[in-house]
């Protein structure tokens, strides 16, 4: 399903953190949001996923208006996300973390849950299976029983992806999924995102690792100071003088250069 953002914005205490941003993310593609620190990328995610309420603009899923819906209602319409500064459930095991993602698929009732009756057990067993599959996909199968509080940053990033995947989402918002990962892990995450998009899901990505962005994005949106300053394919963005000037700056140019040689 496609995700259409139309002129969305929010202000905190008079400062426009996100201002009139529009773009469309299509199924089967990775759409990346880039921009310098404080450009409003995460705030944009929070607006889209219903954590904040937008003061202007619209969000549509497949043409259907979902602006202002609470986060859990958006999740029910197929939107899932990960978080920049990790929102795992540290007191649960990795497996339980991911099983929690199965919430919307679980068809149990309170009565069965309280008394430990058949439906509750069956749903739990089902969730366990799909959670294990998702963990395996994220390369975390061996860590299933480890408490999340004892996992590394990079592992937790992937745990969040696994958790988002089991929700059965069609739109996936990933906020710096490769942060804290070493080169090998970054590559794995890269492949995983590719595979997810290949399934036909709409993937929106915030990422600082330019190599990764350039490698996997079909479409890139550039934010600076809350505003969209450029949009287009990787090649286009790489050569956009505005982007280089406003976003990449002096030392960023070198990074872009490096990315160009991948």
């Amino acid at each position, binding site marked *: 399903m496609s995700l259409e953002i139309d002129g969305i914005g929010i202000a905190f205490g008079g400062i426009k953190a996100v201002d009139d941003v529009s773009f469309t993310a299509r199924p089967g593609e990775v759409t990346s949001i880039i921009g310098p620190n404080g450009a409003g990328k995460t705030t944009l995610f929070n607006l889209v996923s219903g*954590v904040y309420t937008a003061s202007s603009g619209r969000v549509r899923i497949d043409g259907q208006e979902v602006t202002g819906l609470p986060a859990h209602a958006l999740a029910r319409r197929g939107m899932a996300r990960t978080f920049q500064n990790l929102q*795992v459930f540290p*007191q*649960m095991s990795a497996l339980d973390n991911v099983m929690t*993602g199965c919430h*919307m698929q679980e068809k149990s009732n309170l009565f069965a849950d*309280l*008394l*430990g009756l058949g439906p509750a057990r069956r749903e739990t*067993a089902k969730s366990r299976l799909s959670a294990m599959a998702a963990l395996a996909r994220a390369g975390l199968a061996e860590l299933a029983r480890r408490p999340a509080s004892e996992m590394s940053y990079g592992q937790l990033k992937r745990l969040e992806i696994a958790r988002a995947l089991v929700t059965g989402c069609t739109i996936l918002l990933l906020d710096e999924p490769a942060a804290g990962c070493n080169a090998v892990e970054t590559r794995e995450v890269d492949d995983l995102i590719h595979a997810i998009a290949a399934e036909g899901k709409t993937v929106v990505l915030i990422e600082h690792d330019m190599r990764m962005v350039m490698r996997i994005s079909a479409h890139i949106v550039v934010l600076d100071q809350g505003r969209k300053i450029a949009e287009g394919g990787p090649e286009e963005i790489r050569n956009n003088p505005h982007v280089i000037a406003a976003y990449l700056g002096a030392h960023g140019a070198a990074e872009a250069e490096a990315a160009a040689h991948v």
Partner: protein
Amino acid sequence: MAGQGTTTVPNGAGQTAAAKPRRAARRGIGPGLRTFLIFAVLVGLGALIFPSSYFYRVGTLVWINTLAVTGIVVLLGYVGLVSLGHAGFFAIGAYATAILPNYGIPSPLAMLAGVALAGGLALVVGRPILKLSGYYLAIATLGLGMLIWMVLSKEAWLTGGPDGMVVSGMNARNLFKLVGLKLKSAEAWYWVAGFAAAIGAAIAVNLAGSPTGRALRAIHDSDVAARSLGIDVARAKSLAFVISALYAAVAGALLALANGYITPETGGFMHSVEMVTMAVLGGASSVFGALVGALILTALPQLLTVFADYEHMVLGGIMVLTMTLMRRGLVPFIADLWTRRKS
């Protein structure tokens, strides 16, 4: 059921808890039933060693408190919500059980009515109150509890006022007579309270490992992440609030019947604090924490009479020390020690 393993003791009481249920799962016993059996054995053990009615009396209070505190475990340990007003729900259960028989309603029905009333009230006030967080939630629940306490103290025509009222009606002894057992009243109440606590614990453990329970525990750790997974956080919080109110009300009804007399102080601020303290002291993350907390804070004052005038200093000192040294409570602390020793 295939090993609900890691979920038996929610929110990280260590991996010891994770290992045991896996064994149980092989034998085909669910975690709820297993908890029930453990509690049943403990109730029975108590009865084996108790020399007199006095011990049964204290034992009864321990089980009733365990039941009430299990509700706090669901609310605080599972979902992470503080309530400083749950004694109010406790008192609603107790007073309904005391008042309604005076109007010709038999005790068991009165109990049910009280529990339903408490649950209904929790449902109605839960939504607005649970929008608050942290200390604001604390003052709002405190206020709710105080309001209930005030009504119970002022409406003397109904409740007997601050001096309290007699609870007439059912004696547990008669329940046992039906099946041909002759027990002293204190013993009979001990068994009833123990049974209720065991059922309550089993339900709470079942809940923890169920889809609903995972949703509740997710909110404990990250409200935002829970929402992003499609969990209706407001509804889930309200559900936990209602469930914990039901626990408190059942415990209150049992206390009213076992005591035969109640006063508004069962709904007072200090009783709310006591319930939360029991949960936190024992470890709010598991029903065993509830049991240990209830056991300590119920039995301790009986032992502290030795300290006479210094009783309060000792009690306060113990509270401060335990909470600074073992932040997650006794049961998780000991579980951690155990794990570390083993590995």
